[in-house]
């Protein structure tokens, strides 16, 4: 039942780890999030050092997102053009975010900024999605089916005056290419600061700012996350030696199956129901982080790394 991890230097119950992978993979397939914001704290809870938990999580997300991307590609749910713009922005933002963290670590303000970013971003995103989805569910009950026949949406106001207006056929929207590039950069900066893939930020950005349909959002987000986490895995393995491949293997055995099950489940749920569920999970994580911040920890010493 136990397996020793050569990089984490700890022994884990492999059934528990595979079960965690399955649960987070399920969320990945359902919502298009990598699950890093959930998996990293869960791994820390079973005794994995924080730096190794974060880096290894990126490795298993590569598998889960590849599995999920394939499933959504078959469903025709991946907007490659949008994904590519977001990805380019994400890479630029990620590199910038890493530099921001380096500067803040030198001045000693990094941990505070990371914690606050978590609380504010998760809290705002979770609350907004929760309220908005509930309202949408009420409206859809009132006039069922109206949204299916909606024409392609265009950016309004100042956004429509931006150059490089591009039609994203798969998503049925028209935006300036600068918009997904800029939003990708913004999410990339935040993701680097928070040490996560950024799926839980990217999904609301695609829904509310890029006005993409929910099912295309999930597939496109997974497509983008697959590349982001590939980069993160390689850099963490090469620069910091913090990727525990055995741990990633146990997680991905669960997560790739979970992602497939999640995709099938997702087809049975409506977009608004998915959003409500995701917002509840995001808000639960926010509450957990707030409690950790205000309650005295049982141990006042910790290893370096992590949040």
């Amino acid at each position, binding site marked *: 039942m136990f397996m*020793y991890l*050569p990089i984490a*230097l*700890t022994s884990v119950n492999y059934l528990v780890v595979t079960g965690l992978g399955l649960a987070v993979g399920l969320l990945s397939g359902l919502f298009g999030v990598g699950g890093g914001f959930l998996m990293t704290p869960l791994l820390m809870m079973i005794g994995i050092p924080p730096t190794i938990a974060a880096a290894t999580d990126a490795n298993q997300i590569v*598998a889960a997102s590849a599995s999920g991307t394939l499933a959504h590609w078959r469903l025709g749910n991946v907007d490659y053009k949008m994904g590519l713009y977001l990805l380019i922005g994400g890479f630029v933002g990620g590199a910038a975010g890493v530099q921001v963290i380096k500067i803040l670590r030198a001045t000693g303000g990094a941990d505070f900024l990371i914690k606050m970013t978590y609380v504010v971003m998760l809290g705002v995103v979770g609350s907004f999605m929760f309220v908005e989805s509930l309202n949408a569910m009420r409206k859809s009950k009132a006039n069922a089916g109206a949204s299916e026949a909606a024409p392609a949406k265009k950016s309004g106001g100042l956004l429509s005056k931006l150059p490089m207006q591009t039609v994203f056929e798969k998503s049925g929207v028209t935006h300036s290419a600068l918009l997904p590039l800029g939003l990708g950069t913004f999410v990339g900066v935040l993701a680097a600061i928070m040490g996560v893939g950024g799926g839980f930020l990217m999904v609301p950005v695609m829904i509310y700012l890029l006005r993409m349909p929910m099912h295309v959002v999930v597939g496109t987000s997974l497509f983008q996350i697959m590349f982001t986490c590939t980069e993160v*895995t390689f850099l963490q393995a*090469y620069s910091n030696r913090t990727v525990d*491949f055995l741990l990633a293997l146990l997680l991905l055995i669960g997560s790739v199956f979970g992602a497939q099950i999640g995709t099938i489940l997702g087809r049975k749920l409506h977009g608004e129901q998915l959003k409500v569920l995701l917002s509840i999970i995001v808000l639960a994580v926010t509450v957990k982080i707030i409690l950790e*911040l205000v309650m005295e920890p049982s141990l006042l*010493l910790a290893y370096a790394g992590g949040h």
Partner: protein
Amino acid sequence: MLRNKVSVNGLLALLAGLFFIVAALPATPAQALTCQVSPDDIPINLFYNGATLTVTGTSGPGDDLLVKISSTTGDVHLKYKGKASGLFWMKMGNMEFKNVPNVYMLYSTGSIETMVDAAGRTANVLGYDALRAGSTMERTDGVEVEAKWFDEYLKFKKAENLYNVQEGTIVRRHGETGDEYTLTVAWPFQAPPANYTVEVFAVRDGQVVDRASAPITVEQAGVVKQLSGLAFNNPAVYGVLAVIIAMVAGFAVGAIFKKGGGSH
């Protein structure tokens, strides 16, 4: 007749001499303190989850015993937590605990404080107070560290299963020429690969009167050693392999699900 008397007197004198010599010697020679550990080499393989160590040996009759298992001493670097802005608990800075072992386990036949006097405990680093006396603490910002942080350090190490003190756990069997002892130790998987020393102390009248030791080696083996070697010696290859295997696994499972009838 005279000759016979002389020989009887000589024999008596010889017997008396032998009696005094034998009387001057102890009734039975005290048994030397010994120490054996089994296994003395612990391989960390794929399904490793710690090990069971057995420490055995002989000791003088009635001597109390202590068994200390520890790594070499060094500096331990940790982050300390505090309240930022008087509101939020978070990591505030770095703290260094100097001249402490990474792993420290102590077992005894009875109460350590009553068995060994304070000087003996400090000199042989027996117990947490002795560890405290031999170490220093520093904060990287130069602020003086309060004594309570050593208690926090002990709490942290105990939670990691790397520090442990258990009294009355050494089992002894009394023999004619001395005692035999046995100690069973649950070796924690958290103890990293390193060389450790098992030391046995024989205690009489509050003083350490004898000691013996044996080494233990904990090292990675098999797949664990190969993966660790690849990660640290060829990190680029390791990183590429980690990504490729993850992608292949993801796509393969995706393909399996399609074969299972999930046509879209």
